[in-house]
């Protein structure tokens, strides 16, 4: 048995260095590694490249690291909920690569799966295609897109065990499984950490081989961006 458990977020992220390339799981604020982000904020590491579907909101998620100017570059698909992000981008203070969401997901998946590049129809004929190889398959044009890799992947799961096996809940899965596989060092935070053997192997979403460090997260805020409810009829 390989014990991957670390005490807390601060210990887990301690060796993340300046100019590191990070992947951060989550869609909007759903399934983001809240504890690791807070620890990075406290540690103050700068020059980070963050690969994440979104950039958080002004005062939560990656938005916190943008505010403290710890982020040098963002690779994302949608950043519409963060005014500070938009300001830094339009002012030329932040490097940004915006990618089609499916291309982002597949580039990360490819990174973890050892596939250096693949063709996709998404973005053909748009500015995303600039400088990229194109090729026709079945009469339709496609773009060559390369894998994405990270020094560290910061993922969040619902349950995990001491071997690093992970189970996600609801739509909090999103980018977390592919990022877990694409990080040289993957740091998983979980709401419930259990001893190996307690999770049903049939239900594991991320096998422990992809996870190097795991810790029991605490004080999850799980902020909701758009709280929409049915009016009682």
């Amino acid at each position, binding site marked *: 048995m390989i014990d991957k458990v670390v005490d807390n977020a601060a210990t887990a992220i301690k060796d993340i260095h300046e100019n590191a390339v990070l992947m951060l799981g989550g*869609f*909007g*604020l*759903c*399934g983001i590694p809240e504890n690791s982000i807070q620890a990075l904020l406290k540690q103050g590491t700068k020059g980070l490249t963050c690969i994440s*579907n979104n950039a958080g909101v002004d005062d939560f998620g990656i938005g916190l690291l943008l505010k403290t100017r710890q982020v040098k570059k963002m690779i*994302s*698909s*949608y*950043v*519409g*909920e963060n005014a500070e992000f*938009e300001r830094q*981008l*339009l002012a030329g203070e932040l490097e*940004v690569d*915006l*990618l*089609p*969401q*499916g*291309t*982002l*997901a*597949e580039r*990360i*998946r490819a990174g973890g799966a050892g596939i250096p590049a693949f063709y*996709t*129809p*998404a*973005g*053909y*004929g*748009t*500015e*995303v295609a600039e400088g990229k190889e194109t090729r026709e398959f079945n009469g339709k044009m496609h773009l060559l897109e390369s894998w994405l890799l990270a020094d560290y992947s910061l993922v969040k799961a*619902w349950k995990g065990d001491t071997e690093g096996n992970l189970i996600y*809940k*609801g*739509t*909090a*899965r*999103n*980018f*977390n*499984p*592919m990022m877990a596989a694409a990080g040289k060092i993957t740091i998983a935070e979980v709401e419930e950490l259990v001893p190996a053997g307690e999770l049903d192997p049939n239900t594991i*979403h991320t096998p422990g081989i992809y996870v190097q460090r795991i810790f029991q997260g605490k004080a999850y805020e*799980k*902020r*909701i*961006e*758009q*709280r*929409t*409810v*049915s009016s*009682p009829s």
Partner: protein
Amino acid sequence: MLDKIGIAKRIAKEIKDGSYINLGIGIPTLVANYIPEKINVVLQSENGLLGIGPFPSEEQVDADLINAGKQTVSMTPGSALFSSAESFAMIRGGHVDLTILGAMEVSENGDLANWKIPGKMVKGMGGAMDLVASADNIIVAMQHTSRSGDSKLLKKCSLPITGLSCVKKIVTNMAVLDILPTGGFQLLERAPGVSVDDIKAATQGKLHVPDNVPEMTF
């Protein structure tokens, strides 16, 4: 002229029984409220859910269950959850039958622009480029003109493109139009109180007008 709900109601009439559908943010999301009861469809959310249900009750709200617009949702019986990579495999693999999304501009050959205004707005394309590059059937919900009255149905898009020759049908506040395979907007229906001349004046791209243009019914 139609309001947003009117556009959503008219698009709901296009939906076929048994389809898997992805709804974009804004008016497209409203379409779900007007799908007739006898029509059974499954709504796909690109953040990893098949089977989006209605908004939850206060007690059921779950931060771990949202749609692509980051709104809290519920799941219908028979739902499935998956990763973003799996979700876009469904989309690019052609398994989603219909995509409904918003637009800033559409050109007469079906090019779509909806993700960027250079120098002003940078929100990103999200899943729109993957969706429009792959879906067999794309319906656009949009306003026919800008607030200042400029046409958004153009010869050529002026804004950065989301996808080339991808739009099949457009429902605006003024009209229902198809994009002809050979190019041009085919006028099919007009909104209540809107004349063919109004639509002509509001359409910059090539407009094909048949002899009889019926008023929309709902």
